């Protein structure tokens, strides 16, 4: 997989990160100098109203976008100047994405959706290898039985679990979840958070969760609040929520019994 970060170097370190867009004749400053460190294996929730800069921050962390100023060190390597293709390779190997609207390929089976990142990782694998790996991950999120269902045959929660399996298929260090529960009801939200907490705890995957719901943010260890392109608060969560415990307390549902 990856080389270990240099000693003392956090997984992610951003220094004076800035991003501005030119919209017509107005320059919008989405990020106005953000400094932050995220250690490997942590679970960070990033909160803020829309327009606070949290999405821009996440796009830069996810290497989908480049900062207009400042530095971004990923495992000690300055990636702020990487071109499109180098960023694509890094995204493929190190970062898994989970989106609010799931972003699964329509009319494509869950299995093939999960396999998608494997097509771009440069390894010559047989179709069987890909299927095996993808199926293992679908089983891990409790969807082994539905591997051949297409997204429109799955519930929202199931679709998000497929998306999580897809994000994990290349064994990334970081999982970026952008409002993963935004389109889900509260019970399903807890289920998704349970999976994220389990991945963080058992596989030591670094989770960065973007949300505007403060109660969802409390599943993380640390909450960073953005406002007007700046970090306004960065604190450890005192009474962290435990999704597994909450689920156990909830009455079992018919649907879940069938899985």
């Amino acid at each position, binding site marked *: 997989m990856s080389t270990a970060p240099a000693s003392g170097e956090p997984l992610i370190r951003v220094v004076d990160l800035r991003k501005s867009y030119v919209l017509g004749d107005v320059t919008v400053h989405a990020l106005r100098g953000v400094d932050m460190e995220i250690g490997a294996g942590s679970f960070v929730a990033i909160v803020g109203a829309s327009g606070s800069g949290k999405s821009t921050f996440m796009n830069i962390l996810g290497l*989908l976008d480049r900062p207009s100023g400042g530095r971004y060190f990923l495992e000690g390597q300055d990636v702020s100047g990487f071109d499109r293709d180098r960023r*694509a390779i890094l*995204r493929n190997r190190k970062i898994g994405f989970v989106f609010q609207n799931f972003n699964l*390929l329509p009319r494509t089976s869950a299995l093939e959706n999960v396999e998608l*990142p494997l*097509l771009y990782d440069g390894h010559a694998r047989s179709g069987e290898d890909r299927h095996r790996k993808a199926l293992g991950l679908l089983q891990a999120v409790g969807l082994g039985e539905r591997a051949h269902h297409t997204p429109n045959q799955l519930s929202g929660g199931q679709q998000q679990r497929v998306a999580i399996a897809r994000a994990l298929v*290349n064994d990334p260090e970081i999982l970026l979840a952008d409002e993963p529960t935004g389109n889900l009801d509260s019970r399903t939200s807890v289920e998704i958070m349970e999976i994220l907490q389990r991945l963080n705890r058992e596989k030591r995957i670094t989770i960065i969760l973007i949300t505007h719901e403060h109660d969802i943010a409390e599943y993380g260890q640390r909450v960073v609040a953005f406002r007007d392109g700046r970090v306004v608060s960065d604190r450890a969560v005192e009474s962290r929520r435990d999704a597994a415990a909450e689920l156990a307390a909830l009455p079992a549902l018919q649907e879940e019994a069938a899985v």
Partner: protein
Amino acid sequence: MRIQNTLRIALRAIQRNKIRSALTMLGVIIGVASVIAMIALGSGARASIDQQIQAQGTNVIFVSSGSFGRPGGGAVRGGAGSVTTLTLDDAKAISEVRGVTRMSPMVRGRAQVIAGDQNWNTSVEGGNEDYLAIRNWALASGANFTPRDVLVAEKVCLLGDTVVRNLFPDQDPVGQVIRVKNLPFRVLGVLVPKGQGQFGQDQDDLIIAPYTTIQKKLLGITYIQQVYLSADNSDDVERVAVDITRLMRQRHRITNPEEDDFTVRTVEEMAATRVQMANTMTGLLMSVASVSLLVGGIGIMNIMLVSVTERTREIGLRMAVGARTRDILRQFLAEAVSLSVVGGVAGIALGVLVSQGMTWKLGWPTMITSTSILVAFAFAGAVGVFFGYYPARKAANLDPIEALRYE
């Protein structure tokens, strides 16, 4: 990404919109089919010209009286055959030219021929005993006339198939007597049919007799109209034709080539003109066909642009999970090329069918060559690459964030 994955994704995308893909391909199908059919028509025309040359004998040279050259000089010029300056002595001198293996004088006229209660108007050709060999005629039955028949102007003849069918519908003509301009001619033999000639004329509608007989008894002339020659090999034909021209100018004391009172032509030369004509025609039809292929390509570009727009989110997602610029470029290029190549294959099949239909229904000669299939296939592929590149480039250059957010 590996090539088979790229192809698989492309084919699946095509299958997803079956009707749309089929309609897009239709442009290429029609384009390729017309290219194939036009090449087939051209090759068929050339092949049938070749066949006719074979039928005439490849190394045949003929010297006609009169000139086909450019008008010039001040003399009154008649058409070919109207000049009476070509003589038997010329013919004999020509036969001495190195490389000439056979020589026959030739005279020609038309006559009403009668056998029993049947009559028919046909062409009467006169030659010597070598005439059949030079003209590549074979006998179906009977025998050729002899040098002695030629010498004494015997009233004997050979009948072409059309004449036989008109005069002797149900009788063996060999040994029978026919009347040509009221002179009795004994039928010595019947010619093997040759079928249609270069210009669609019936080559079997003729009688062949000794030229001496035709000269004296039918036409009342002493000159000859043409000299037919065969050269010993077809590579030598050009040189022999040049030598004959020189010899004839000497004999007729001609210094200015524009005043030639004779014309030397080879069968190949005549064929070359017609091959050129066929090529020009084919070229013309091909360019029209290529235009439809071009239009088909534009259709592909159009639908690929629609497809890129529709699948913006998919492109964004693929980029997010690690697709590089070239992965996306290849994916959409593969889709465009698949459309054009599948269309190309179908077009080739349709083109072959259309060609055969033209031969079968209209009687036009067509010939499908492997080259034409390869060319059409390569052309179709090239159309896909050319017209698929712009949409693919557009897809590959999308901004991943905007693509992911696209509604």
